[in-house]
C-alpha cells in the first residue's frame, strides 16, 4: 500500500486516490485537429520506466494534482496542486 501526498490533506493511502492520466497531455481543441494528434491525446501514453509525471485525484477532497513518482521503485518524488496553469 503506497502512501501518496495530497497537497491539501497530506499523506494518505493509495486507495483514496484515482489516477488521472499523464501530466502534460494537453488537450488539442477544435474539430480540425489532425486526427493523429487527437488519437495521441486520447490513447497514446508514455508509460515511462522511472520518473513519471502524472495527474492524480484525491477522492476524499476531490482535488486533482500533479505527482512525480518513480514507476520502478514506487518512490514519490513530489506532488503539487494544479494551480490553474491550464485555466482558460
Amino acid at each position, binding site marked *: 500500500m503506497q502512501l501518496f501526498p495530497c497537497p491539501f490533506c497530506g499523506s494518505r493511502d*493509495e486507495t483514496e486516490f484515482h489516477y488521472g492520466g499523464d501530466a502534460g497531455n494537453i*488537450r488539442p481543441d*477544435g474539430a480540425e485537429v489532425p*486526427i493523429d494528434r*487527437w488519437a495521441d491525446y486520447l490513447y497514446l501514453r508514455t508509460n515511462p520506466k522511472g520518473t513519471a509525471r502524472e495527474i492524480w485525484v484525491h477522492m476524499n477532497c476531490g482535488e*486533482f494534482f500533479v505527482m512525480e513518482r518513480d514507476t520502478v521503485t514506487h518512490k514519490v518524488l513530489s506532488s503539487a496542486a494544479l494551480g*490553474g496553469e491550464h*485555466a*482558460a
Partner: protein
Amino acid sequence: MTASRLATGGSAIDRSRPIRFSFDGATVHGYAGDTIASALLAGDVAVVGRSFKYHRPRGIWSAGVEEPNALVDVGGSVPTTPNTRATTEPARDGLVARSVNAAPSALADRNAFLDRFARFIPAAFYYKTFMWPDWHRFEPRIRAMAGLGKVDAGWTSAGTADQINHHCDVLVVGAGPAGLAAVRLASGAGLSVMLVDDQPKPGGSLGHRAGEIDGKPAAAWIAETVAELAAAGQLILPSTTAFGIYDHNLVGLNQRHCDGRPDTLWRVRPRQIVLATGAIERPLPFANNDLPGIMSADAALAYLRRHAVLVGRRIVLATNNDSAYEVATALAEVGADVTLVDIRRDGTPPTPANVGLVKGRALTSATGKLRVDGVTLDDGTRLGTDCVLISGGWTPTIHLFGQAKGKLAWSEARAAFLPGDPVDGIAVAGAAAGAVSLSEVFAGAGNAVTSSGQKKAAIPHSTGLEATGGITAAWPMPGSKGRIWIDYQNDVTVKDVELAARENFVSVEHLKRYTTLGMATDQGKTSNLPGLALMAGITGRTVPEVGTTTYRPPFTPVPLASFAGARVGELMAPVRRLPLETIHRANGAVFQEYGGWLRPAHYGGNADAERSIADEARRARQSVALFDGSTLGKIEVIGPQAAAFVDFLYYNTMSTLKPGRCRYGFMLSENGVVFDDGVLVRLDEQRFVVSCSSSHVAAVHARLEEWRQDRFGRGAVYIHNATSDMATLTVSGPNARKLLETLDLGLSLDDSDLPHMAVGHGTYAGDEVRVARVSFTGDRSYEISIRADRAEPLWAQLRRAGQAFDVVVIGLEALMILRAEKGFIVIGKDTDGTTLPHDLGVDGPRAKRQSEFVGRRSLFTEEAARDNRMQLVGLAVPQGEAPLATGAHGIKRIDGGLRSQGFVTSSYQSPTLGRPVALGLIERGAARHGETIEIQHLGKIRTATIAPPCAFDPAGDRLHA
C-alpha cells in the same frame, strides 16, 4: 515406545493442566502449552499425514512454520480451520484434529498404493497425460484425489475480524535474541517500538538453545527485557506473524487469539523495520529421506527443552554444520543413544560426551515402512535407529526482505542467501542476516537500530557457550541413487528436478512451475534452496546464477476474513438509501438495487409483481402518478464562467438557456461516446443544476471537477453535489396539475408561468421547493425538490390529496415501461460503449456547433461517419405476440450464415397500448422504419418491424394536456 514424554522439564508446558484431544479419531493426551505436534510426539504417533501426490506416509519434520508434512484440519472446541500446521497449532482440550490427504486415517490411507506407481507419474505427468481427449474428462476424479484439508461448508464466522492500523518508530519482527536486543536498544533510545513474534512466548531460539547473556541465564535475560519493555509502555504482540511487507513499508501482521475470536489484521506503518526473523533448518539429501521419524535436529531440541519430549531412543543425527552438536549433547544427557554423523572430516567442534561421532560420512539411504528403522552411510555401514535427526544447515528467513524488493547476496561461507544491498527503512539482524553466534547476533542488532540515527545504548554481551558457524554445503547431487525428496509436501524429488532440466525448464521460475517445487502451502521454506542448488549442479551454474524465485506475501496463510474485516454482508458494497424508504416499505414497496441505490421496484408486495407493475404503468397514464425520484442527480455549477463551463461539458449548447428554463442534453466522453443524459436547469445567470442519471452522479461529479480544475480554474466555477440534500417527488399524468393545485406551493402553476421545461420556486410548510416541468413519462409532469428531511409531510399530503384523483404510486419498473413507450433512453441500457449522439438521432450540435465541447473531435472521424452505424429504433412485433427478449439480436443472412445487425436494448409489454414495445440499436436503423427483420434469441428466430423509437403519443400532446 520410542518417542516419549520425560518425567520432568519442558519450559512451555504446564503439567498441572492436562488436556485431551483427538487425532484421526484416537485420543491424544497432552498439557497446556503443547502444540498438536508436541503432544502427538509425546504419544509416539509417527505417521501424521500423507504426501500430496504419492500418498507417502509422513511424520513431523519441524517445530515451526516451515512444517511441510504435519498439516491437520482442526475443529471441535476450536473454530473449524483446514490445513493448519500441527507444529504451530496449540493443543486444546476437546480439539478434534484430522490428517489431510488421507482416508480413513494417516496410518491406513487407502490411496497409499499410488506410491507404487510413482515412476509412472513424475513431474509434469498431468500436463503430458491428460491432454487427450480433454482435460475436463479427468479433472473431477483428479480433483477428488488431490487437495488437502476439507472445507466445512457449514462454517460461520464467530464475528468479524478486527483490523487495526498502527504507527510506531520501530517495528521489530521476531523476539529471539536479535529482536529482543534490537527492541531494547530502540526503547532505550526513546523510540516507540512494536515487537511481534509468531510464538506464544518471546525468546525465539533462546527458548531451547543454551545461552548466557550479560552474565544471566537466557530465560532471566528474556524476562528482564520483556519487563523493561512493558514498563516503557512498548507494544509486544506474541502469536503474531508479520506476513508481508507491502509498498512504502506497510507491514501486515496476523495476530492469533486463543479464545475463539477471529484473527486480527494489523496494518503497521513503522518508520523503521528490523527483521530478526531467524533461520530455518534444511534437510539433507539421501534416499527415502521423507520417512516418518526423520526430523529436523533443531526441532528435536525444541521438543526436548520446551515440551520435555524425547523424540527417539536410538538416534542417528546427520549434519554438515556445528549447530547439531548442542542437540547431540542434550539428547545424550537425557539418556538417548546418539550417533552423530558429520559429513566433515576436519574442523568439527569437540565430540560431545556420550555421543558416538562418525566423521567424514554422509547418509545415502534410510529404510523403514511407516517409520524409519535404519540408515546406510556412504561407506556402506548400516545403523539401526528409531529416529533420524537432520541438520543440513540454516536458511535465513529473509522472505520479508525479499518482498520489500531487497536483493540477496550469496554467501559461500554460510551456504546461504543473505540480505544484500540495504533497503530504505529495513534492517536485518540475527540469524536472518546470517549470524550464528550470540555475540554476532547482538552486534548486528546494535547496528540495525543505530542505523536509524539514534543514540547507541549498551549492546548485550554473550557470556555463555558460543555457537560456531562452520558448515560444508551438502546439496542434492545429480545422478544420486534412490528417491531423494526435496519438496516433501509436493513430492518433488531429485529425479523430478533432473527431468525438468532435461526438458530445458532450467530457469528457476520454470523449474518451480514445472515440478511444483516450493508451490505447496509451506511455500518451499525447507525445499527451495536445495532445489535450486541441485539445478545449479545439473546445469553447471553457481547457486546465485540460478537465483531464487520471487518472494511474495503471505509468509504464512492468513484467513480471508482478516482482509474482509467488517466489510461483510451489506457492508461489503453499501447501498444508498432514499430518505423516504421506511414510508415506501410501509406502503408495500418491494425494493431492489438500481445503480447503487435501493429503490422501490414496485408496490403491492411480492405476490404477482408483474401485475402490480402493469397496473401502476396503466393507471399512471389514466389520471396521476407519484414517483420518488430523489436519486436523480442534482449537481450545482456556480460561478462567473458557469455558462461557458456547461457549454464545454455538454454536447448541446446550454449557454443560450434562459434562467428559469431547463434543457435536455448529452454529456459525451472524449471519444465521442454518450456518457450521460439528463436535464440541465438554469437557476440564474451564474447557476445551473445538472440533473444527471441516478447511477452516474458520482462519475459526473468527478468529471465536472476534473474539467473545472484542469481547464477552467478554481475561480471560474464552483461545483456542489447536492443530490442527497434534497428529495425529489414526481407528480405525473393528465391530472398532475389538478393534484398540485390542491397544495399551496406559493407559485403559479399556470402554463404560461410554468410551461414544459421551466422551473419555478415556491414553498411548502415554510421550506423552499423547486418545481421543474420535466417529464420522463411523456405525460405532464412536475418534479418537486424539497429538503430531504422535510419531504415526508409533502409526500403524505400528495398521497392524501391524490385519493380524489385515483392517484397511483409507481416504482421504477413501471417508470421503465412508461419511458420505453415514449422511446426515452436509459444510457448504458439503450446505448453501449460505442454509441455516438447522432446514433440516437441527435445530430444538430454536431452539425452546427462552432464552440468547443468534450468529445467534439471524435464525432468527425471515419468511424463516426461510417454509414452502417447502429442507430436507435423502436421494434414492433406482429399482433398478439409476446415481447421480444432484451438482448436478442437482429440478424441478417449472409452467404448462408447468420450475422448480427444489432440488438434489442429494452422490451416491455405496454398495458396502455395493449402490445409489446421495444427499443433497439440496429444497423442503419433510422433509415429503415417499416422494414421487417429477423430477431434471434436462444436459437429461436422471430420477426419484428423497425419503427420510430416513440410508440406512444408521438406528437407529444400529453405533455401539455
